[in-house]
């Protein structure tokens, strides 16, 4: 049977023996146990089949003796039955299992961000230099008032609903304590505080050490309700109800018991070593009117002082769903596109379910405007926002702010090997193994996150200035600032933009 199960490794470890000094650092650093020292040969050898291509060994090698290359081993060329497809058949016929993957959809679907171009001012109005003039990126997320109320002296009464204030229209998206490490959470929390933005606890509760970052924290309530209690709800600046996730719409979550160590069991309020299973639906929400009840239960529990976010995956009927949510009492809708990341998802779901965030955002924003309820809610979009240009395009399409998570993990050292589900993250992010977690130093991690968002902020200001816009509010929904390139009439009409040259 061994021959039937054999799969040639996707990646090969290439070692330059002229440079290798047998220091065995690669061996120590690889949690997948790829490298070992062969004492007979007196040299290092590597088992390519265990390699996930995370570049840890390459990055730490003191003599730059290592590199990872894609194998040129191949099946007979076939565009229908690719090597990957064939191997997946072998794997499933061997173990009868559902294929698992991590991070976002890697398939070659169109990335609409890359087919949208941004405008700039020439002659008829001036570009604005952000180094000389104020350039505002602050946003307020939450419901806008229906009526202006005045006191007897005619002063406007502040009747605004609770809101979140962000110095930059970027938030760190939900990643639970459990799916990522303590040190990763600490880095996110501290960075959010320094940046004047918010991070999101994900569905695993909030470690007691991090309550002090409350004003920069969104606490999540998901179908498993892990770690949800009154103090938790009150600790954050906003509460997010997670209905769905872009990487796996319609699917729940599963944190294996092996990852539920003492701290995590305490934070999630579940027994040590037990599997943490989030059901696919919230079992108290089978329809929109049930959602409304949960929104108001959470508002009651927190005295109507915190905005409530409802997070949904971008699926086919997204505009109608969002319209329902905008009338449910929620203050903010977060939409997660099909390229959003995850710590583990069934491969077929990740790669085939959901729609691109660009199209979802455009149709939701337009629909809410047509119904005159766009001001009932703010819109946050994620999955996946890869750069400051994506942020600018998202806001011009109609978003209030963007969630980033994969980009944040990359800043912390993630190399997108898409193997989070193995729990052996060599970069100390998606793991609970103490020796690995230690590798992510929160002092350095938070600084890198701050650097990333600051650099995006600079770029956003430059792009805005070029358009002659000096406040992010004037960019929101400003679709005339965008043009499509290489898109069909249908795609342009969904995005609500003109083609380049028009």
């Amino acid at each position: 049977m061994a021959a039937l199960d054999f799969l040639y490794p996707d990646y090969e470890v290439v070692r330059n023996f002229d440079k290798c000094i047998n220091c065995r650092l690669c061996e120590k650093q690889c949690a997948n146990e790829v490298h070992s020292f062969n004492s007979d040969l007196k040299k290092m050898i590597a088992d390519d089949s265990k390699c996930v291509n995370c570049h840890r060994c390459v990055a730490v090698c003191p003599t730059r003796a290592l590199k990872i290359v894609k194998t040129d081993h191949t099946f007979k060329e076939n565009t229908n039955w690719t090597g990957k497809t064939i191997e997946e058949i072998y794997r499933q016929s061997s173990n009868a299992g559902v294929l698992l993957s991590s991070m976002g959809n890697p398939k070659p679907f169109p990335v609409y961000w890359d087919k949208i171009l941004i405008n700039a001012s020439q002659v008829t109005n001036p570009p604005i230099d952000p180094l000389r003039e104020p350039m505002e990126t602050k946003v307020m997320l939450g419901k806008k008032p229906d009526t202006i109320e005045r006191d007897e002296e005619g002063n406007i009464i502040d009747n605004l609903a609770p809101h979140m204030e962000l110095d930059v229209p970027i938030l760190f998206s939900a990643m639970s304590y459990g799916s990522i490490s303590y040190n990763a959470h600490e880095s996110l929390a501290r960075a959010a505080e320094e940046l004047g933005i918010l991070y999101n606890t994900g569905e695993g509760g909030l470690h007691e050490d991090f309550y002090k970052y409350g004003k920069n924290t969104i606490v999540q309530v998901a179908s498993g309700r892990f770690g949800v209690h009154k103090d938790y709800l009150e600790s954050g600046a906003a509460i997010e109800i997670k209905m769905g996730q872009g990487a796996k719409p319609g699917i729940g979550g599963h944190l294996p018991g092996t990852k539920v160590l003492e701290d995590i069991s305490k934070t999630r309020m579940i027994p040590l070593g037990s599997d943490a299973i989030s059901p696919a639906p919230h079992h108290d929400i089978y329809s929109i009117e049930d959602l409304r009840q949960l929104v108001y239960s959470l508002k009651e529990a927190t005295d109507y002082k915190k905005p409530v976010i409802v997070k949904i995956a971008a699926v086919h009927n997204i505009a109608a769903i969002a319209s329902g949510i905008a009338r449910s009492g929620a203050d903010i809708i977060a939409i997660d596109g099909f390229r959003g990341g995850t710590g583990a998802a069934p491969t077929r779901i990740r790669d085939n379910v959901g729609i691109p965030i660009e199209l979802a955002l455009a149709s939701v924003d337009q629909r809410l405007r047509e119904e005159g309820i766009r001001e009932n809610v703010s819109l946050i979009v994620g999955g996946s926002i890869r750069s400051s240009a994506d942020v600018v395009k998202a806001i011009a399409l109609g978003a209030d702010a963007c969630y980033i998570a994969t980009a944040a993990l990359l800043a912390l050292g993630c190399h997108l090997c898409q193997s989070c589900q193995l729990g052996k993250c060599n970069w100390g992010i998606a793991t609970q193994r103490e020796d690995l977690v230690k590798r992510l130093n929160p002092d350095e991690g938070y600084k890198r996150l701050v650097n990333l968002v600051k650099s995006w902020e600079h770029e956003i200001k430059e792009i805005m200035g070029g358009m002659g816009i000096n406040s992010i509010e004037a960019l929101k929904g400003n679709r005339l600032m965008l043009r499509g390139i290489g898109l069909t009439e249908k795609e342009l009409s969904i995005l609500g933009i003109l083609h380049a040259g028009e």
Partner: protein
Amino acid sequence: MLLKEGQIRIPSGCAISGIFAKDGKRISGEAIIKSISTMHDRSNGLGGGFAGYGIYPEYKDSYAFHIFYDDIEAREKCERFLDRHFDVVNLSKIPTRKNPRIINEPLIWRYFLNPLPTKLADSQLDEKEYVAKCCIRINTQIDGAYVFSSGKNMGVFKAVGFPEDVGDFYRLEEYSGYCWTAHGRYPTNTPGWWGGAHPFAMLDYSIVHNGEISSYDANRRYIEMFGYKCSLLTDTEVITYIIDFLNRKKKLTLEEVAAVIAAPFWSTIEHMEEKERIKYTYLRRAFSSLLVTGPFSILLGFDGGMMALNDRLKLRSMVAAEKDNMFYIASEECAIRIIEPNPDKIWSPKGGEPIIVTLEGGVK
């Protein structure tokens, strides 16, 4: 074929000028023509126009509709609509004189109208909203008819041409009012449609504007949620709707309107004393999508007053002056000096700072 305003967005540069008599003294249209013509080089002959307030004292309680018609058919169709919705007090062609540089004129008619009380009651709208809705219906549903002025005791006169020729064409020296605004247009591309010239007016609001706003589509997509239809795709149109929405519908004062469309920077708001800070924060948060960015200088005419406002970075020139009871404002100082060589005071208003003048007494 060139697309006209409404089918495509056409940016324009411009000249604007305004005169206001605070004591309500009625002045003839000659002065404003003299002022705007001084800035001849700021327009390119593709649009000019004027708004006068206090010009119809004999019909001051009726809505004065100025309408362009492409042909008699459009006129008949529109007049049937007007008969169904209004009591027509008076109707006539607007008197014009031939000017060799004003060509291709449409049919230009004027009506003094009062809403039919039964229709008005049936609509469950207040009177102004009823009139505004009727204008929008004519402009969007009757092909070849375009209402370009619809306020009481005020009127807009506009055409394709240089403003001085437009003033001559409409015989503005025969009208007198307490307030005049004028516009000379420098569009980058237009087939020369009369409706596309400025001022843009709605009810008694009229706007002349110089600039190209970068927030246009953000503003347009917001305001269209509230029943407005931006059919011309011009800055002036969307700014007029924003002011109508905030001032007439949301009942904000004009100072508050200015604090929304040319909002102070957050860094300025932070340093305000508490009461002001709360107010400005509230307005920016509540109407964030109505912030107007990019260069603009606007003159808003309204019943009994005028407001001038620059964008918050002051990216367009605008100069103000006073002499006794007269207030002057223009894109360039020369346009003021030509009609008032010795003002008591002349200054350049700060970006984002509204200047509001109103009648101290009734119209004299």
